[in-house]
């Protein structure tokens, strides 16, 4: 009995939901099933036809350049925005579809979940139109290759990625004493150019130290100066040089000189200064605590206990951010296995587990993305760099529940005659399936109704 609850925890909380027969495969050693997924290379996505973000962004830059002369005319601005949407929308749809398909079909669902976790930690949001066509590329290019690597390399890859620079406005941030800054101050007094602190703040607050990590406003400002010049290549008005759409360090924007961040002085030149600060942030004890807290909240319970967090943080510190070591420590902890169904599924987790359990294909244009949006979690659109929240209170509102029930009903009506819900339930839920639900499925008035009840059952709404 104990072993099969662990199997359900492995497939449903660590993974994205059991597929029929998977619980039997996981069998008597769920921990081994999880650690085995950490071998075999980073989690890639079958990306037939997906373009690189640089490729897409280069096209955007060309579009803007073609409209440069009239860019202050609001009619042109609208026209450009419409063209941008037309360019970006199909890219977004392909990327979001591929992502969902990856989570639904993966043989290493633990790695898919970890990918989603890190993308959410380093969140960008496509409600900012400028990144609508880049979010998928960002996840494939900056996140996936490092899920099984080190946090340091992951952090560096993320903060260099043009999607992140665009999302948090760093690509045009100008040091006041930089070459361009001084030139502008001499010439055009009416047009303010200068430092944008957005990315620096979010790196400290959200990506590394955390909001209580002990940084000050002075650190934010200094760090913003440090990463001035971290920009995007391609000709963009007064800026020239670099490969269009790729990371490009623009020395003429960089605030020169040594800077002090978190009481440490950095006198490296150019891009090395930012890299040095990021490397130190990556292994800072506050970062270890911050990451440990989020990981524990995601895999154990909404309010994980302090001892568990501290233990994971110590592994992070000792391993200097070695991520597989951290994941193993999580798997080897007692706490994730002490109780099933501790977490309320987000809409993405709910839909993905339903698709996995029903073995439904993810086909573009057939409503999976629309369903995610209707359920309250439009792909890549958390609305802020803090990402989607990770507590039951954030997802279990009355109307949100009704949406899931309605969706379950729609699926039941469409597919109910092709599934045997009573037979499927133990395959997906193992021994977390309650007697009440088992009985309800057995006595359902119809096959469609039975499937609806399974998909709306309390055990299926949680993980």
């Amino acid at each position, binding site marked *: 009995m104990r072993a099969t609850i662990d199997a359900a925890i492995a497939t449903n909380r660590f993974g994205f939901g059991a597929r029929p027969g998977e619980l039997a495969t996981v069998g008597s050693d769920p921990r081994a099933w999880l650690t085995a997924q950490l071998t075999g290379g980073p989690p890639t996505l079958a990306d037939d036809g997906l373009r690189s973000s640089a490729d897409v962004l280069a096209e955007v830059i060309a579009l803007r350049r073609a409209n440069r002369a009239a860019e202050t005319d*609001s009619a042109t601005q609208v026209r450009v925005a419409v063209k941008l949407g037309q360019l970006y*929308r199909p890219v*977004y*749809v392909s990327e979001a579809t591929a992502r969902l398909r990856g989570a639904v079909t993966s043989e290493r669902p633990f790695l898919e979940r970890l990918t989603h976790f890190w993308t959410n930690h380093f969140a960008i949001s496509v*409600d900012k*139109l400028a990144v*609508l066509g880049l979010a998928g590329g960002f996840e494939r290019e900056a996140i996936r290759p490092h899920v099984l690597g080190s946090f340091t390399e992951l952090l560096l890859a993320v903060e260099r990625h043009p999607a992140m620079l665009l999302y948090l*406005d760093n690509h*045009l*941030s*100008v040091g006041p004493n930089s070459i361009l800054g001084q030139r502008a101050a001499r010439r055009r007094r*009416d*047009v*303010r*150019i*200068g*430092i*944008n*602190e*957005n990315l620096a*703040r979010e790196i400290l*607050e959200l990506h590394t130290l955390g*909001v209580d990590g002990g940084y000050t*406003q002075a650190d934010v400002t200094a760090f913003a100066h440090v990463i001035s010049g971290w920009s995007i290549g391609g000709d963009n008005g007064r800026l020239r040089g670099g490969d269009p759409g790729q990371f490009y360090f623009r020395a003429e924007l960089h605030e020169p000189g040594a800077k002090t961040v978190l009481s440490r002085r950095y006198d490296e030149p150019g891009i090395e200064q930012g890299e040095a600060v990021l490397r130190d942030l990556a292994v800072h004890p506050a970062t270890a605590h911050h990451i440990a807290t989020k990981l524990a909240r995601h895999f154990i319970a909404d309010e994980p206990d302090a001892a568990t967090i501290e233990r994971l943080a110590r592994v992070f510190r000792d391993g200097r951010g070695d991520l597989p070591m951290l994941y193993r420590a999580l798997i080897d902890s007692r706490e994730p296995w002490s109780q099933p169904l501790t977490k309320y599924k987000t809409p993405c987790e709910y839909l993905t587990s339903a698709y996995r359990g029903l073995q439904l294909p993810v086909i573009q*244009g057939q409503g999976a*993305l*629309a369903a995610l*949006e*209707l359920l*309250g979690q439009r792909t890549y*659109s958390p*609305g802020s760099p*803090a990402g989607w929240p990770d507590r*039951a*209170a*954030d*997802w*279990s*509102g*009355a*109307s*949100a*529940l*009704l*949406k899931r*029930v*309605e969706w379950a*009903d*729609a699926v039941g009506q469409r597919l109910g005659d092709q599934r045997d819900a009573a037979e499927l339930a133990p395959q997906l839920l193992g021994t977390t399936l309650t007697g*009440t639900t088992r009985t309800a499925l057995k006595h*359902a*008035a*119809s096959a469609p*109704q039975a499937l*609806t*009840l399974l998909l*709306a*059952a*309390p055990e299926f*709404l949680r993980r």
Partner: protein
Amino acid sequence: MSTIARRTFLGTGLLAAGGAFLAPRLTFAAAAGDSRLIVVLMRGALDGLAAVPPHGDHDYAGLRAELAIAPPGGANGALPLDALFGLHPKLDFLHESYGAGELTVFHALATAYRERSHFDGQDVLENGSARAHALQSGWLNRALAAQPRERRGPGRELGVALGQNVPLVMRGPAAVASWSPSRLAALDEDTLQRLADLYAADPLLSQRLADALAADAIATAGSSASDGEGADGMLARDRGAARYGEVIHAAAAFLARDDGPRVAVFDTIGWDTHANEGGAQGQLGARLAALDAGLRTLKAQLGPAWGRTAIVMLTEFGRTAATNGTRGTDHGTATAAFLLGGAVRGGRVVADWPGLSSRALYQQRDLAPTLDARALLKGVLHEHLGIPERELDSSVFPESAAVRPLRDLFRA
């Protein structure tokens, strides 16, 4: 099984396993007390200096450079309020309301929070204390719990949260309803009943399901179909606009009822204008125009209830006095707030204006706060909803005895 409208189902009640009759959980206060309150949260740090430009302050234009709103009189000039302040030119309805004495504008207002994190700032705005994450409930919910006895009754919800999930400001001991627009067809009665049975042992799910069904019946009563099928419209702006429209309609539908809730909350997003904010025209202008239009619709749909309605519009903090390097503004401190409604004693600006000189700016970058947001909220809750002051100083806004409520905010 016949598919019937949820509101009809609601009327028949829910039968628990074993045949016990469960009355619908969601019922509202009887008509005693007819003041309505709507709280609108503007997430992302609304630029108060753009929404309510202090055109009469001689430091304003220089700080805001190409984003500055021109003084009243010119094309794209501010809409006049008084010698010092105007309204952003896109806020037509608010300006008309000001002229009709139904809008009070507050400026140089801030919560007790002095950092610049959206998430912590919003947490403080909603939790009603001086510290982020100090409380897991919100001041509005605690205010509902502190309502005088004659406005309450057993199992009666007085508040409704409009949107996918209940925001922190509305979470807490007092039960509240929630509602958001739906796209899917209604479930049949038998399935709903069996689901209710399945949830009987799960307190969270059973409560949520019943509340959802009841709220939906109210919100959609008498409405025509709004936005069409949920096709793959990808531009966030379109879907946001459709949702906002439905939320406005639902707010009016709930609050216009004699037997409905008295308090509603919803939020709006997109106020975080770090880049290309625009002055009179542009990103912020377009959002303000949309907000303004929705409020105009809300007044029209509330009908006679407008006369007893107050709408409080708040944001977590303001933005820098000067523009940044990307034609926008960064996170700041003090900002503007609005109190709108037929019940409001308006037509004035409440501001102890500190000025925008470099000496006057907070940390040499932000408009300095001279008014605590809780003073406004206490005034509203006391005068308009009758919450006793000692509750406001203790349970609703803990440790806030030093913050005195604003007075005379409402008509007699």
